[in-house]
């Protein structure tokens, strides 16, 4: 696209959208929203970038390899967080039972593994959205 205003506006807004997305991901356990919603916001900011500046530029920012890695290891992350329970001798995906410090409710560090899992899921969802978009647009 050649629209100058759009590009400038996007350059200003998109970083904020992206940061907002991360905010939603990270605050999934203390406020409405969560990792899925946040992840989609992050993904959308990148999709918007690619639509406005062209697929090639978007691709340059996020090469296929990075996407594949975030996809795979983001999902694996979830499983590994679940394994914490097994390592500690309690069932899979245990949180409180695994002896994780649940922190002070209402703060960012609360919730023990929940926030960690949530972060992983958020990254994954974002990369999934971007991968889906790239795949459908390129072919």
């Amino acid at each position, binding site marked *: 696209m050649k629209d100058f205003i759009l590009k400038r506006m996007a350059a200003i807004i998109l970083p904020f959208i992206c940061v907002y997305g991360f905010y939603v991901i990270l605050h999934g356990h203390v406020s409405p929203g969560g990792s899925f919603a946040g992840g989609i916001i992050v993904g959308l900011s990148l999709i918007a970038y690619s639509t406005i500046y062209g697929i090639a530029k978007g691709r340059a920012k996020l090469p296929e390899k990075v996407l*594949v*890695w975030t*996809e*795979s*290891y983001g*999902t*694996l992350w979830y*499983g590994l967080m*679940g394994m914490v*329970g*097994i390592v500690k*001798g*309690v*069932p*899979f*995906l*245990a*949180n*409180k*039972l695994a002896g994780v410090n649940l922190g002070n409710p209402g703060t960012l560090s609360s919730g023990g593994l929940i926030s960690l899992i949530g972060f992983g899921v958020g990254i994954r969802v974002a990369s999934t959205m971007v991968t889906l978009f790239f795949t459908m647009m390129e072919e």
Partner: protein
Amino acid sequence: MTATIIPDLPVFVVIAPLFVAFVLPTFARRMRLVEALVILVGILGFLGALYLASLVFAQKGSPLIYSLGGWQAPWGIELKAGNLGALFLLVVTGVSLPVSLFAKGNLAQEVGGKERSARFYVLYLLLGGALAGMAVTNDLFNVFVLVEVVTLSCCGLVSARNHPRAAEAAFKYLIMATLGSTLVMGGIGFIYMITGHLNMEFAARELASIWQHSPHVVWMALSFILVGFGVKAAVFPLHVWLPDAHSTAPSPASAILSGLAVKGYLICLLKFLYNVFGSALMQEFAVDRILVLAGAVAIIAGSILALSQDELKRRLAYSTVAQVGYIVLGLGLLNRQGLAGTLFYLASHAVIKSTLFLAAGAIIAATGKKKVSELSGIGRKMPLTMAAFTIGSLGLIGLPLFSGFVGKWYLLLGSIETGKPLPTVVVIAGSILCATYLLPVIRRAYFEPAPDTTNADWQDPQDPGFSQKLALILLAAIVVLLGVVPGPLLELAKRAAAELLLLQ
């Protein structure tokens, strides 16, 4: 080390293939490593399932309960590895291991390219993990999520073949399957609304006491679930997607789809019917009669449709429609022998149909001929493949000493116990029809001369490579083994049947 693994075994068999699947895409190009990992996880899964089954076998009656995250039953998700779960786990792992061995041979050729086959393997492992999850889950909504994983990975496997027809088949499959899973989700919703529980046992207990207050809702939930799983498991009038999907998929995928995926849905249906609604409610709502009727129609119609197909894989696909009929019919018999027979039949059909599809795949890969009428003399050129096909066919027909017979025997015992002639007659007629659509293939392969070898486009076909041969031998051996020593598996099936029918 073993002390920590054993209590977590029910969850390990589910997540082991999934974990491997997650990391596979990152080294998609290193084919050797990918294949080695897939086979390794297959072996580990099989050993795990075997050990789990022996544990279940040893402690009679009481299933292994595993509360995920440590949250007890009505709050958290519960895994239950009882007799039924152990049986289906054995089937899943026992069939998928040889199939992955088979895939090792010529998958890249069939789906086109290394990376594509790596992705194929990922979908394959996800499917395996989700099926294992279906075997042990005891939670209504978890069933729905697993069903979705299975559906999506199945559709992905179908469209792995780089051909527009595959995409069309996959789309049809996807739409129908999603329709089905939406119905299933609706059914779960209705059950949840009137019971307030998602755990199967709690929901069943609640349902048994309150169903008189809202019979129509129970009816609705039942019919949603029946139709939903009916679409997914291809029960006769709802089977329209199956022949296309199963015949256009790459051969290892066809084997898994026909052998296992359909069975996974049927196991879920069984869990809903027996664990949630219970046999008393099934009789109250005449579900047993509906199932017997639907099964009977499916057996006859599926067999007749199979008879009219000339394309080998399509014929096998329609035969799956007929065989699903057997299982559906067995679910409606509501007695111990019949249900045990159904479960054993399910296991044996999983093995047999995989054998048949793999053998058909090997033939098609070697000759490029898809039609039954073109397979003259193939038995001489590919003796081992055709021998596996023959063993599979005889097993499906239900000849003694092959696994199909044992299942059929108990199915017949069960049908006679109901005192109604329909199931008996249909089961018998079905096996005769089965002979009429499978034996001509064998006759052509062995007793008709091969066409002229001077013809240019018939280069001499040969048996496939080592790993594929091994897969065929393994599967055929299981078919015979289950027929000659059905003991342990049959015992497991019987105990599962008694457990499902709440008998002691």
